[in-house]
């Protein structure tokens, strides 16, 4: 051994990834397939299917670059994995990674020829991009605060992990009519159970005096060009029935789902076409058959080992009074159910994070979190759990140094933006950048500190397909194009009142708002709300009061809001305001241009 090799000195009590999701031969196969494709020995459609199955999307206007989606089951990711993603993003992507709304990491603009190298790198740390795209079961989500949520009945994480383990590479779900999404949440408040193909909320009942773990299961929800809220399958699904239920739903969908019409082949359309009761019956019957005919008893492999928490010792220096700490504490941290520990949320602009920041995040996880890892959140964010309350000021100081201490994580200032025209073929507008602009404006105006806005959300999609989840936002936007005379300008359709919790509903379309008027429009809505609100009322509850028909004398309906906003959204002529006709991040005038969508391939 040469004396000149670097040995990394890291604490030895760090937790290691428990499950290796990777298979190295898949990267070799991918490299081989790219060569065959380039040589014209595989046709485009077959190659596209293969590519998507392995987690690589085409990029905007070109198949020569991919977006690689790295699956992070339950959002749980370890420091060495984060560091590897940082390294891969520098070597093969744009030196940045992106945290998606489904807890994945995404690397954009990777040369098709390098996808196999990224996959190879991922295998070194037990990660995979397999079945992150394509007509498969996508990343199984789980609330980022599961296990520490003050409102949860039990921690669903082991179930999410076990479900992933069962489904990943399972022949049963390699060629579904379309993608399939499973979301576990911790409780009714936090999560997306009602907008997934299968959504699950922990539930407990007494059976013969014995407490039995199980779930409330919701089926057939989902956002898209046409969105639906999921239906409650049955009062209680015991955890013993969980796997049978998942298998049955997937089998019914696989057998009966629409394989012809790409625009209507998500399971929610099947549920809608059959009607809920019929679909529900078919699933329950299927479950009885599955239960009875499995030749071996199959069970979810639940990891029941109890977590060992490390003793953390903080070596970071702390400035005596880090500026901005109270604001950050108020808007980015909450107490865990375990006394003495807090959860800290790190908000990223549209989910983007640099390689260097990822390395710092990995270090912070090692240093500050007693569980020594992080979770990706539901809001393109990153979550540190098991941070001792007294360490929060030091944590904040570390984040501040790295440019990661933006406040407002748990407020309306934390805006969702899909990738939009930065990389997506279907996008009509640069929703990604708009979300960043809105967030910056909110922080500049200190709206994150306003308790009246805290439980409200802004979510922005670059087209009607809902990747930015606009339909569950208090104020949601999806991109399109408008025209004044012969001149086109970018605009958004605005919806109000969406939410994903137990009162889940899709936002109601209010009006069209030109891109360059989105920020003034939001600010005007806040203004109207402030003048109309009743004591203790939040923006979200005010919007719902209006939707429910109980508005005040001045603003009775969404239509009244629309009237008040009309002066804000008037389109000037191109001679009056050239910038109005230009989308964010562009020099020239707006034109709507899209390529073939791959979500549906």
């Amino acid at each position: 051994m040469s004396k000149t090799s670097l040995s990394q000195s890291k604490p030895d009590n760090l937790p290691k990834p428990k499950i290796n999701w990777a298979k190295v031969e898949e990267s070799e196969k991918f490299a081989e397939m790219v060569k065959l494709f380039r040589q014209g020995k595989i046709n485009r459609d077959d190659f596209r299917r293969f590519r998507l199955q392995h987690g690589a999307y085409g990029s905007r206007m070109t198949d020569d670059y991919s977006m690689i989606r790295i699956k992070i089951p339950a959002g749980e990711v370890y420091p060495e994995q984060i560091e590897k993603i940082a390294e891969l993003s520098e070597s093969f992507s744009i030196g940045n990674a992106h945290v998606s709304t489904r807890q994945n990491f995404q690397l954009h603009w990777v040369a098709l020829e390098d996808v196999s190298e990224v996959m190879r790198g991922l295998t070194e740390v037990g990660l995979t991009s397999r079945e992150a795209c394509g007509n498969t079961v996508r990343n199984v989500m789980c609330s980022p605060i599961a296990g520490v949520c003050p409102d949860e009945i039990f921690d669903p994480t082991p179930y999410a992990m076990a479900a992933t383990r069962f489904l990943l590479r399972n022949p049963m779900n390699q060629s579904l009519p379309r993608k399939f999404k499973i979301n576990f949440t911790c409780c009714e408040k936090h999560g997306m159970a009602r907008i997934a193909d299968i959504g699950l909320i922990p539930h407990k009942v007494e059976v013969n005096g014995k407490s039995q773990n199980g779930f409330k299961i919701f089926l057939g929800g989902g956002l898209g060009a046409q969105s639906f809220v999921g239906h409650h399958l049955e009062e209680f699904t015991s955890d013993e029935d969980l796997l049978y239920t998942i298998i049955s739903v997937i089998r019914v969908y696989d057998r009966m789902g629409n394989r012809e019409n790409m625009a209507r082949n998500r399971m929610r359309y099947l549920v809608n076409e059959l009607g809920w009761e019929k679909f529900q019956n078919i699933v329950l019957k299927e479950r009885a058959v599955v239960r009875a005919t499995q030749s071996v008893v199959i069970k979810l492999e639940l990891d029941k080992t109890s977590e060992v928490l490390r003793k953390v010792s903080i070596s970071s220096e702390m400035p005596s009074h880090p500026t901005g700490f109270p604001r950050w504490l108020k808007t980015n941290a909450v107490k865990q159910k375990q006394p003495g520990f807090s959860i800290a949320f790190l908000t990223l602009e549209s989910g983007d994070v640099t390689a260097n920041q990822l390395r710092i995040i990995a270090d912070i996880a090692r240093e500050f979190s007693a569980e020594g890892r992080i979770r990706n959140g539901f809001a393109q964010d990153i979550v540190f759990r098991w941070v001792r309350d007294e360490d929060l000021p030091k944590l904040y100081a570390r984040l501040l140094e790295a440019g990661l201490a933006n406040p407002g994580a748990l407020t309306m200032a934390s805006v969702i933006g899909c990738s939009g025209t930065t990389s997506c073929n279907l996008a009509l507008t640069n929703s990604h950048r708009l979300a960043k602009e809105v967030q910056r404006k909110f922080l500049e105006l200190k709206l994150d500190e306003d308790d009246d806005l805290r439980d409200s959300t802004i979510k922005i999609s670059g087209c009607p397909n809902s990747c930015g989840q606009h339909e569950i936002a208090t104020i949601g936007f999806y991109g399109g194009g408008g025209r004044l005379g012969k001149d086109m300008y970018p605009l958004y359709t605005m919806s109000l009142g969406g939410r994903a919790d137990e009162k889940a509903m899709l936002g109601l379309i209010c009006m069209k708002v030109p891109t360059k008027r989105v920020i003034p429009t939001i600010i005007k809505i806040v203004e109207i709300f402030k003048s109309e609100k009743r004591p203790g009322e939040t923006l979200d509850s005010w919007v719902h009061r209006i939707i429910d028909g109980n508005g005040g004398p001045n603003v009775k309906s969404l239509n009244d809001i629309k009237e008040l906003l009309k002066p804000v959204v008037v389109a000037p002529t191109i001679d009056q305001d050239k910038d109005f006709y230009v989308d964010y991040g562009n020099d020239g005038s707006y034109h709507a241009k899209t390529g073939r969508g791959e979500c549906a391939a």
Partner: protein
Amino acid sequence: MCCLSKEKTMRVTIDADALRSDIRDKSVKVLDIRKEEDYKQGHIPGAINFPLSNLLADDSPDKVVQYAQSFGIDDETPVVVYDDTFGALASRVAWTLQYIGHEDISLLDITFGTWKKLGLETSVEPPSLGKKTHSLKLQPEILATAEYLMPAKEKGAVLVDNRERLNFLEHHIPGAINIPYRMLASNQNVLRPKEELKRLIQNRNISPGSEVITYCGSVGTLSGLGYYALKSIGMENVKLYVRSFKEWNSLEKPIEKQNDANYWDLSAE
């Protein structure tokens, strides 16, 4: 003797252990390509400071021969170059010496920063410089000019842009492929192990016998590293378009771009 020196030119990189032993034997000249003020704070023992800016001020072959001679480098002197800029600046100097006909030149396979992190010896002593004579035998086969590119490309040469991905997407020489310089390094070394570099090239369907021309943004540093990455895996016919994209652009030659996508807005910087 001739064969031996030929073999030595194949040594694209040298590791720290081998360099330390060569320094003890006094059989090598070491060039430090960092800025003078950094050099003065400490450098590899015996290293001569040759900031890249000095070279770029005048990189005409006659001037480069003068530099070599003043450093005590003759035609047979083994030379090792290093920097603290992931090997890119060192590569540009190495290539220039190679261009005037110097055969025995290697890149230190780590940066000075890593050298220090490893706790290896440094010095603030100025080196002894004895003047030597160096011949001028230009090697035009490792240089590409703007006029050369397109005809070569038509004959099958592969044009490699070593800038970062976003810069490449923004604009590049038509038909170029992108191998960002960051792809070339490993965690510790300025170049990845040979088998990895070979795989990256094979993945791109570039055959070992192809002619490859590397270029980057302005002065041929990142693409100098690209040049040596390809040399390190035994590719024979590699050229550096040393005036790179800056010249290409100023000559108003055709440019290609990835249109209709706002990729810059994905950056968190």
